[in-house]
Structure formats: structure tokens, C-alpha cells
């Protein structure tokens, strides 16, 4: 196995699961789209591997993932297909009890957020990125990131009010 392949495989083995989880949040639980996003991001990462700085693969992959998602959300067909009252993938939902029900509620609430607000919330509160980095990834002004995050959080609190109290750090 070539060095490039070996290094790439090691990285993917270690980080793929986390990328998938991030993609799930970005897509509000749409497992298929999340998997597509990750595959696309990893393919781009493989192509760019020689240029990726040592130790920078994680950030690069995350950036490609978010970029791909942001681009996707700007496509008309995405908007047509993404409109759904129900979570598109039942596999993650499971039986309605305890933590599963709570997770379902969170995913449903995320799905109810506009793409920009959901992306801002996930980037800020899941990936722990600062406003400047979010701004670059989302290709919007820092002020927009802040407002999208604030609105997203407010809406999440409203949507989840009956299920769980939300505290953002």
C-alpha cells in the first residue's frame, strides 16, 4: 500500500465516525445525505492529501465537509428535497423511550431550523469553532454567524421546550 493510501486509511479509520456524526447533525439526521457528504468530503480529501499539512487532515476534512454541505444547501434541488416534516431516515429513530426520544426530538428540532441556523449551531456548539472560522466556512459575515446562532438556539429552545431544557454554554 502506498504511503498516501496508508496514511489516508489510518486517518479515515480514526476520524470517519466523527465526520459522520457531524454530517448527521448538519443534515438533521438524514443518514443517507450525511453518508454522501462524508464520502464526498473524504474523496476530496484523498485527492488533496499530498497538500494537506501534517496534522491538518482533521481540520481539512471538517472544512471540506462543511463546505460541501453549505454548497449543497444552496442548490435548488436540495431545498426541494429537504423539505420534510418527518425525519427522513427511520433507522436512527428507534423506539420512543428515554434518551432515544430525546435524540429524536433534537434531530426533529434541528430539521426544523433553516439550513443557515442549523449549520451555525452545529459549527459553534458541536464543533466548537469560533465565529471567524464559522464565518469562513459558511461564507457569511461574522455578524450573520452570530445572529444565525442566536436565532437557531432560540428556536431550538422553543421547539424543545416540551421535551428538554436547553442550555448553551
Amino acid at each position: 500500500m502506498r504511503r498516501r493510501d496508508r496514511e489516508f486509511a489510518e486517518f479515515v479509520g480514526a476520524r470517519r465516525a466523527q465526520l459522520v456524526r457531524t454530517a448527521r447533525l448538519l443534515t438533521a439526521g438524514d443518514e443517507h445525505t450525511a453518508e454522501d457528504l462524508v464520502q464526498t468530503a473524504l474523496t476530496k480529501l484523498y485527492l488533496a492529501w499530498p497538500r494537506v499539512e501534517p496534522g491538518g487532515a482533521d481540520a481539512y476534512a471538517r472544512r471540506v465537509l462543511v463546505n460541501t454541505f453549505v454548497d449543497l444547501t444552496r442548490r435548488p434541488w436540495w431545498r426541494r428535497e429537504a423539505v420534510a416534516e418527518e425525519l427522513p431516515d427511520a433507522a436512527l429513530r428507534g423506539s420512543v423511550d428515554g434518551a432515544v426520544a430525546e435524540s429524536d426530538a433534537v434531530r426533529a428540532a434541528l430539521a426544523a431550523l433553516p439550513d443557515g441556523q442549523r449549520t451555525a449551531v452545529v459549527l459553534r456548539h458541536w464543533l466548537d469553532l469560533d465565529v471567524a472560522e464559522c464565518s469562513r466556512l459558511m461564507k457569511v459575515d461574522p455578524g450573520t454567524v452570530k445572529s444565525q446562532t442566536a436565532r437557531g438556539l432560540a428556536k431550538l429552545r422553543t421547539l424543545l421546550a416540551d421535551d428538554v431544557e436547553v442550555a448553551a454554554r
Partner: protein
Amino acid sequence: MTELRDLLERAAGPEVSGGDVATAVGADLARGRRALRRRTTARAVAGVAVVGALALVVPRVLPTVDGGGDAGPAGQGPSVSVTQGQPPERPAAEVYAGVEAALAERGLAVPPHTTGSPLRWTTVDGGLWFSLPPGAVGAGGVEMTPLLPGKGLRGDNHGGGSGEMAVGPQGLHTLGLVLQRVSQQPVEDAEYCALIQPERQLGYEVTDESIRSDTCVQRGVDSGTLFVTESGSDWNTRYVTVGLVRDDATAVSVTATVEDDFGTDVLVDLAQDPRLRW
């Protein structure tokens, strides 16, 4: 009160098991290799397809310069010849129309194209050299972007330097062209050589030793004109058509590179299309 981070943690769902990860890694690796192969093939074919286009366009678009084909003494200016090409048997517009039709047949909508500046080419070991006529830099759709600070092609560094070249809005960027100034003349009077190296990424710096202008001529075994058209782009796809034609207006090869948002190069080899032969 539940921390949002904890909620997101749970909503992100479970991590896949070890066996699934191994399978996924293998699949990701295979996809990456395929994508790399497609890209490499696309670039290689585009480079090889560089066997014949634009002699058709050059005589009509750019003033003809006859350099006689002799290598100039070192440091005494450009030695890559730009010679009179054969008049095309078919007008360029007709060929472009053929390109558009051929692409359309393959389901690729082609917005109105713009024509990039044609370049002279000659084959050299491992690639194709291109020369730009004097005055082409920054005009006629050809522009050069300095690659390294202080070593830009348009800077004061007359000793050489390398840079990216773009023909049309994005054109040759997709081909990984590396451009090298080979002349010691002032920039505005200089000619340039470029070597298509499909396997290399932009940013590869060619050393002065490897890109002597006299080599371009002496080792060249074939020559002609390259045309590149940035056919246009829509929201997720851009269209670049590259073609080569020999000076005798034979062996036309036209390649269309279509790159979508996923970085996928879709190569359409139109070389066999009868409409594109002239």
C-alpha cells in the same frame, strides 16, 4: 437543564462498529483512488490530446510572428518560434459549433463560450511546451498569476520564475499548467514557455535548468496550436474545452473537461467526432 452539547452528542447518533469502519475505510480508499485515476486520466488525456488544435485559430486571432525556429543564444531573448500556420480548412466558429453539438449530445449543456488566446505548442520529453507571443500576457484572455512573491512573471525578476497561467476565466488552471519565463528580455517583449505536466499540481516550480528555451525548439518533434475555451459554467459545473491541431491542420483532438462541485472531472474525448475533424 441539559447542555446543548450533550443533546447534540446524543442526536449525532451512535458511532459505527469496528467492522463497519474497516469496510467504510476500504470503500473510501477505493473511491479516492478512482477519483484520482479519473483526474489523472483527464489531465493526461488533455495533455496528450494536445496533439493538434488551434493552428486553426492562431492565424485568425493573433498576429503571426515568424521566429524561424532557431534556438536563440542563451540570454538573448526568446527562441521558441511562432510560425505561420496553415490556413484552416474550416472556420473556427464551425469547429466550436461542432464542439458544442458534440457536448450537447452527451447531455452536457454548453453555455455560450468565450475563446481563450491560442498558444503555440511543441512536444518535448514528458510534456508539451507552449509559447506565448509578445504582448499576450495580460491580454486577449491570457493572464498570469504570480506564484511566488517577488517572482511573478510580470515582476522585475528577469531571471525566471514560474507561475500559474489561466486562459480565459479558469481554463488552464484545471490542466495544471506551469509556466516559466525563458527570456531575459523585458517582460513586455518576452515570450514564454509552458510545460503541461498533467500529473503535477499547480504550484510546482520548474527550475531554470529544466526549461531552457532552446530545448523547446531542438527537442520538439511536433508543433501546432492549442486552443482552450472556457465554455462557461452554471451553478455547479464548468466547461473547458481543450484542443490541439498541428500546423498542417491535421490530427485534431478536442477534449472537454467538465468539473462539478464535487471535484469530479468528467472527461469527454471528442477526438473521434467527425464534426471536429478538419
